[in-house]
Structure formats: C-alpha cells, structure tokens
C-alpha cells in the first residue's frame, strides 16, 4: 500500500475513534437516554451491528473449518489471519450487543442463570463458546500444535458449532410470532447462507489485500475463492427471491405489505442499491473475471462484506415498523412509542467505535502476531 494511502487511512481511523470514544462515553455516562430505539422499535442499530459483526466472524471462521475439515491445503496459509479477524469480529459484535442491553453490567447473567427455552440464552452460550473456540484454535495454530490430524477434528467441530450458532442467530428472529416479517422458516437458512457469504467475502478481501504472498504466487486459489463467493451471492439472491416472490405472488397477506415496504417504501434504495446493486450485481461482475485479478477480487469481497450490513439492517428494522394494532401509534403520545426509527448519532458513534477498534486491532495485530506463516510448511500441514 502507498504511504499516502496509509496516511489517509490513519487519519480516517483516528477521526472514527475520536467520534467513537465520544459515543461510548455518552453511553456509559447517560445510559440509553440518547438512543432512538424505544418501546415499539426495541431493537435498533446495535442489534443490526451485532448480527452483522457476529455473522462476519462466524462466516469467516467457517471458511477455516471447511479448509481444515476437508484438508484444502492450498488455503492453509489463510487460516491464521482469518481466525484472527474472525475472533476480532466476534468480540466486537459481542461488545456492541452488550452496549445494547438496558443493564449492560448484567450481560453475563445468561451464562450463569440461563433459561434454555430462550434462543437468546443459547445464542449467548454459543457466542462465548464459539469465541473461545476460535481463540483456542488460533493460539494452538500459532503455537504450532495443531498437527494435520488435529486440524481435521478442529475443522469438523468448528463446522458444527459455527452452523449451530449461525442458525440460532437466525432463529432468534424467525421464532418471534409477533413479527410476520421475521416469522419465517427460511429465516435460519437465510442467516446461515448470509453468514457464509459475508464471512467468505471478508476472507477474499483479506486474502487479496493482506496476503499478497499467497495469492501473488497462486492466482488459481484466488479464482476459486472468487467463484465460491460468487456462488454464495447467487444462493443468497435465490433465497431472498423465494422469500419475496412467494408473498408477492397473490399480493395478499401481511408479509406482502411488509415486503412491499422494503422494496418500494421510503427506504427502497437500501434494498435495490445497497443490497442488490452494491452487494450482489457489481461484485458478481467483478468476481466473474477470470483469471481473477487481485484488485477486482478484493474490491468484490469488500463490497459484498460491507453491503451485507444493509441486508442486516433490512432484516432487523422493517420487521418492527408495522404496528401490531391499527392506531397503536396514536394511542399514546411519546417519542419512544412510535414506529419510525433512525439511529441517533450516539448509536452510530458506538458502532463506529467498535468497528474502528476492531480494524485497529487487526492491523496492529498483524504487525505483532505472526499471522503469515511459511507458505510451504502451511500447505503441507507440517510445522
């Protein structure tokens, strides 16, 4: 990377951190006074951020588990860096959701007072277990203790845990009968597919821009990874299509109204421009290029990974914007009892803080931790 680009990046990062520190301090000093979610839209930007960051963490680590489980040696060199990024994403997602709690100091209560009928209790347990698991494998990897046979076992356990955690995240929404927009059997499947997509896109981005040694010497690996991401884009688009088209076919029912609102309501651009154009069409064009160019693959991965935030936003928010009863919004006048929501600056600042901190940790960690390993040794699995 050029020096000037690095300098611009550093300045942006410092501004983001400064703003983020302001937001975090406001949250810590004044609690939830400065958030815009309320009684009728109880989940706002921080829930979106959590779903997104945790999804990135799960999806990217699933890449490593698959590589390990199926012994895909040529991708071994990506594992360490990917696990590091995954752990950071999971940790940042966890912190964001802790800030969302009315009592953030009670965040660990579901661990020692779990109510296992609750998917949220399961998600909390899986969150902690999964994060520890990723950190454990990462540490073992660095300590060079994961020999070939163990890698395979770690891979299979990781696949099981990762899919369970991802599905649980989707089911958290899908099981809520109060919200027809979420209450869909496709929810957990879409969540798993989405986590795979965003996570693999992040791996592609990291591989293209941060692991030049690997992909510089092996453009075939990059092409294959690009094709996998392309396949995942198609899968997610097909799932989204089936979700939307079924309700639209006869044009009746509550889901139809909700879906129409996403597609043609005041925030139509989130779906058409954010999700579809930036998150699927442009990356698909970039990833179709064969043989893959590092820049095209990296930008494609970046677009998919970033635009998936919009998909998460479009999952969490529209599910809550329709009153459960006609006229509920007029029954009691209060700024927190409305069905309109746009995140406050403090909400954005807190999210930006954790994302910027995560990026800082990743870049700093890359310098300190031995994230790149000897290519030949990594590929042969021998250390």
């Amino acid at each position, binding site marked *: 990377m050029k020096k000037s680009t690095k300098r611009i990046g550093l300045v942006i990062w410092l501004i983001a951190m400064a703003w983020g520190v302001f937001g975090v301090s406001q949250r810590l000093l004044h*609690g939830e006074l400065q958030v815009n979610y309320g009684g009728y839209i109880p989940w706002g930007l921080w829930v979106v951020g959590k779903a997104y960051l945790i999804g990135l963490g799960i999806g990217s680590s699933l890449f490593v588990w698959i590589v390990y489980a199926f012994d895909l040696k040529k991708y071994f060199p990506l594992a360490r860096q990917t696990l590091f990024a995954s752990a950071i994403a999971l940790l940042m997602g966890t912190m964001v959701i802790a800030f*969302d709690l009315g009592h953030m100091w009670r965040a660990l209560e579901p661990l020692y*007072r779990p109510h296992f009928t*609750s998917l949220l209790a399961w998600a909390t347990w899986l969150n902690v277990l999964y994060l520890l698991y990723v950190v454990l494998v990462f540490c073992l990897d660095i300590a060079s203790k994961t020999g070939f046979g163990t890698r395979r076992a770690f891979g299979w356990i990781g696949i099981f845990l990762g899919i369970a955690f991802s599905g649980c995240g989707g089911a958290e929404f899908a099981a809520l*009968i109060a919200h027809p927009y979420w209450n869909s059997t496709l929810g957990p499947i879409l969540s798993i597919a989405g986590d795979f997509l965003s996570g693999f896109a992040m791996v592609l981005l990291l591989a293209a821009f941060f692991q030049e040694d690997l992909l510089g010497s092996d453009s075939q690996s990059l092409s294959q990874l690009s094709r996998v991401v392309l396949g995942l884009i198609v899968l997610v688009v097909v799932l989204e299509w089936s979700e939307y088209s079924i309700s639209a076919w006869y044009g009746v029912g509550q889901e139809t109204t909700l879906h129409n609102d996403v597609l043609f309501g005041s925030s139509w651009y989130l779906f058409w421009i954010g999700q579809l154009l930036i998150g699927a069409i442009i990356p698909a064009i970039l990833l179709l290029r064969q043989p893959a160019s590092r820049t095209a693959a990296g930008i494609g991965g970046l677009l998919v990974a970033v635009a998936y935030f919009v998909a998460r936003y479009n999952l969490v928010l529209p599910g809550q914007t329709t009153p*459960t009863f006609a006229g509920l919004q*007029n029954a009691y006048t209060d700024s927190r009892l409305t069905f309109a929501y746009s995140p406050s600056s403090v909400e954005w600042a807190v999210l930006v803080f954790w994302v910027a901190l995560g990026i800082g940790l990743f870049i700093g960690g890359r310098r300190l931790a031995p994230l790149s390993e000897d290519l030949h040794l990594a590929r042969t699995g021998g250390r």
Partner: protein
Amino acid sequence: MEKDRGSRDTEGPEVERAGKDRTCESVRHQTGRRELLQTIFMGAAAVACATFGLDGEARASTCSAEANLAGPLLAPKGLVEGNQLDRMRHELLLAMKKPVSKRKWVMVIDQQKCIGCRACNISCNTENNLPPGVVYRPVLSQEVGKYPNVGRVFTPKPCMHCDNPPCVPVCPVKATWKREDGVVVIDYNICIGCRNCLEACPYSARTADFGDFYGMGTPEIMPYETRPNYEYSKEWKRKPNSDDSPVGNARKCHFCLHRLREGMLPACVTTCLGGATYFGDFNDKNSLVHELLGSSRVRQLKPELGTKPSVFYLA
C-alpha cells in the same frame, strides 16, 4: 359482606324498574320548583326532538334519559358504578383468602361502555409513576364505518396476561414468568434489558424504561417524578442518570399486584369512568367476571395466535 351483596341485588332491579316507568308524561305532572325546571328542560328537549327530526326511538330515549335527571338515585343500574366496584372488591377479598394457586385473575373490558376517556391510562401512569416511554394501558381508538355511518371503538390494551405467553420462554435469564394466579410478572433485579420479550409480545404490551424523565432538559426535575412506586410490593425509586432498576428493564402491566395484596382493585378498574373494566377471580363461579364471560359478546385479541389471553373484551 354476603348481606351487602343481597341488599344490592334487591335494590338493583327496583332502581331499573323505576327508571323505566318514568315517562315524559309523568314528569310533566309533577309539581314543585325542581319539577318546574325539569318540565322546562323536557320541553326544550321535546322542541329539539321536533326541530332536528329525531326518529321515534331516539326521541323516546332522550325523554327517558332526561326524566332520570329528576332523581339521581333512580338512575339505571348500569350507571351506578359503586355497586359493581363494591361487588368486585368483595370478591377480591374472598379470592385473596384462597391460596395463590386457587385464584385466576381475569379482566373484562366492555367496549360498549368504554367512552375512550383514558382515565384508566392516567391512573395507571400515576399509580406506577410511569416515566416517559413506558405505558401499561394505552387506549386504542378506531373509527369504524364510512361517513355518514361512522362510529368509534375504544380498546384499552393492558398486558393480556396470556396463559400461553410468548414473552416468557424468550427471556434468557428467566426474569419474567407466569404466576400461579395467572399474572405474568417481571423481576426487575434479574432482567438484563435485552428487550427480547418486547419483540416476542404480539400485543406490544411491554415497553422499556430508558431512564427518561419528563423534566429532563428543564431547570428542575419535579419531586413527583422521583417519588418511588410500589410495583410488586417493593419500593422502586428512579433517579436521573442512574441505571438502577427499573431503569433499563422491560416493564408492563402487572394487574396492580401490590394493590391486590392490600385488598384494592387495580387502579384502572376503580377509575374507569364508564364502568367498563371488570376484574376478578375466574375460579369463583359466582364472581362478576365469571358471569360476564358467559356473554355471547366475549372476544379476545388475536385469538388465532394461541396465546390464550386473560383479558377479555365484550364487543
């Protein structure tokens, strides 16, 4: 107390009969100053009836309503709310003598009697000292029909205290549960404020306490905002810029459990101007609520969800 009920029961029908027997004609034949005033009033009503062309039925009801003004004690039974409150209070005391598991609290709301005054909403806010953003009993107001044939339906909407409550299993820390007497409660000291239960409730009956005060941004937060409330028979004191519970918690109607314990009806029941809200023990077959639930007008909100609400409406 039984005697009380008996005496009310004999008084009731008489009152009703007296009200019905009075006609415009009989009022006109009474003498005295009061009657004279009444006669003038009735005359005006008759002129109004003729002028505005009310049909026969409407005119008759106007006349009989005016006739009742002559003696407030002779008002129709339904308008004397003291009776139904006394009866419900009496039944409440009987129920409180039973073990918790033997009672089943239900609420019945007569939408034909609800006038949409929101007195219940206000009294609930006052009783529980609710801050901004928290509401336990909003009153929905819905226009029905098309002009010129329009009407308005009011739906006070507390927590339904569902028998199959979707809000309970979603709580990750078991901070909310259904008591044996049917009341769904929240332990503020356990609740972590994840608001999962708010999302799970199909009735939007739960809101969350974000620590707001009406006086925030003004020179002073008034003492009435920081006085404690006594939900669940404990003292809860909210302080500005503090996240001590109930700030940060999910909050909702609890059928005024703290009042029931003291032998008092829920605040919304005692303050209902239209006498539209009934409360009692459904396990008591002689109770007023049990009687009302035998009506063909009974309905529930969103019954198709299978939540089995304990709040019923008389449509």
